[in-house]
């Protein structure tokens, strides 16, 4: 009797979960945008452009995938962009000084991870709301990076290292492979591990999660550290793709990453969302910019169009969610 877990009696039922349905609708939205762009622009559907879109989406995705976990716990990490900048600058310096890309990559990941861990400590041990803790962190990191770089640019990295961001393997850009790998890992982690389940539970009700015996603080530390490490990974991709880094590269990365998470259907209130959704969110954002470039839409219109797309995407999501219930 005490061991109900062993009494697995009823037959398994197959079903499409709510999450799967949402992801499906979101994919549909992305395809719709693709269809519109394909009609408007001849070059859109070329293989080259599609790979191009995927590669561009990958950078946003790397940052946004870690962020998704944070948002699933009802937190936010506003420091991801600043983290990318600092990690890139430090990793770049290490590669310049030691000539070893491997060491540089490790440093970049470690730097990102440590920043994430510090965020986690502020949120758990110091009990500062994540929004504020990471906003404070954002400025501390900016200050550090500005001081460290003193207005310089790091540039010129070994060709081998640069393959990570710009190279191809069997006709596909390497970042696209990385994207697939991390999409897989992220999805497996969130959906198919008990840690993932615990993260959802924490987001849905942190008090209940703690009283259910979940080590909330440890899981939060993990989640912020992962988010930081993914920012570190993004910094490496950035570095090797752009062959250079400077202090201000992070500023323009944060809001798109958050937007990707939200367009992807992850709720800021925690407990709801998927990593795959975030991938599609990143894809939609990238498609929109790609489309505007292809169609030579004036720069003035770009923020307006992006803003409308963000609202439309989330609105569509909610419509379908209601119907699906």
């Amino acid at each position: 009797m005490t061991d109900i877990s062993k009494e697995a009696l009823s037959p398994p039922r197959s079903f499409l979960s709510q999450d799967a349905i949402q992801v499906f609708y979101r994919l549909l939205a992305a395809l719709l945008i693709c269809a519109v762009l394909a009609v408007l622009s001849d070059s859109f559907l070329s293989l080259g452009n599609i790979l191009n879109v995927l590669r561009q989406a990958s950078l946003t995705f790397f940052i946004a995938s870690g962020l998704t976990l944070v948002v699933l716990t009802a937190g936010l990490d506003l420091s991801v962009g600043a983290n990318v900048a600092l990690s890139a600058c430090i990793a770049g310096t290490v590669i310049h000084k030691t000539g070893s890309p491997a060491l540089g990559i490790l440093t970049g990941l470690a730097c990102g991870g440590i920043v994430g861990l510090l965020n986690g400590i502020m949120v758990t041990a110091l009990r500062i709301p994540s929004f504020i803790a990471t906003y404070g962190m954002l400025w501390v990191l900016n200050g550090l990076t500005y001081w460290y770089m003193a207005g310089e640019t790091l540039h010129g990295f070994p060709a081998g290292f640069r393959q990570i961001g710009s190279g191809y393997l069997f006709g596909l850009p390497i970042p696209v492979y990385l994207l697939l790998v991390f999409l897989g890992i992220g999805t497996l982690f969130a959906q198919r591990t008990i840690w993932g389940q615990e993260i959802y539970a924490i987001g849905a009700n942190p008090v209940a999660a703690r009283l259910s015996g979940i080590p909330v603080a440890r899981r939060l530390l993990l989640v912020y550290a992962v988010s930081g490490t993914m920012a570190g990974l993004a910094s490496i991709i950035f570095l090797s793709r752009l062959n250079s880094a400077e202090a201000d590269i992070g500023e323009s990365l944060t809001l798109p990453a958050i937007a990707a998470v939200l367009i992807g259907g992850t709720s800021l209130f925690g407990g709801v969302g998927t990593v795959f959704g975030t991938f599609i969110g990143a894809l939609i954002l990238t498609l929109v910019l790609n489309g505007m470039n292809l169609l030579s839409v004036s720069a003035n219109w770009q923020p307006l169009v992006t803003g409308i797309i963000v609202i439309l995407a989330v609105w569509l999501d909610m419509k379908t969610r209601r119907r699906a219930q």
Partner: protein
Amino acid sequence: MREAAVVSQPNPLQRIPGVAIVLVLLIALFSAVAPGFLSVANLSNVLVQSTILTMLALPMTLIIMTEGLDLSMGAVLTLTSLCVAIVSLATKSMLLGLGAGLLVGAAFGFANGWLVAIIGIPPFVATLGTLGMAQGLSLIVSDGQSVVGIPHSVRDIYSATLLGVPVPIVMALVTYAAFHGLLYHTRFGTYIFALGGNREALRYAGLSPNKLLIVVYAIGGAMAGIAGLLMTARMNSGHPTAGLGLEFDAIAAVAVGGTSFERGNGWLLGTLLGVIAVGVLRNGLNLISMPSSVQVASVGVLVIVALFLDGLRSRA
């Protein structure tokens, strides 16, 4: 956390957020080390510089109390500032400019409220979207250019004094008084607490939470309009990037001031102190010529320390 069974009267000291302590410390520190910090001219500078942010942070407090957020405020301020510039340039009238700014600001605020309340889009997303739209419209109406040549009556708003007090400070004080009265002494203010604290309670009381929410966001937009006038007056021109990012400053000031992001607990005076603390910090560091990278980090440290102190005391 957990409610205690025994009713304890709130200790007034406990309500002082960490920022009040930090503010006092900062003032003491800079009085000692920064020559000229305590001069009337300098203090008046700090206050005048804080007025625009005050006008955003006060309505932001109300919005955050409804468990909402307005990320579009900086961009809307930018747009309204441009509207003030363009309309006052065309009509030679400061008041028409202000009217245009107010109208556009309130329209955006209304749109935010509509998206959040009626359409049901989470505030963060809705206002992230309108942020893009306001920013885009700013670029479109100005074609990315500054708008100059506006009438002197606009610029005078920023530099004039009333009984020796700079007009922006007067405006900020009036705004504060209005918000204080609104939140703590009117029915509407009571409902704002309920919007964040227990929306169902409002519904059962026969009130429409949606309408109330729209009004709260619209107030935010309208205040961005008034702040837009000050911004234009301050720059004596309109500029398509002038206010970008100010929303985060406002949110930080609100949080530092002790307003929580959950369950409708807000404190207006704390917000004011938060705004001033940021102002004092920047000013003081400038006066002692702190390297700029330290200044960058210091704002982050301020935010973290103030919230940390808050957390410490709420646990005690």
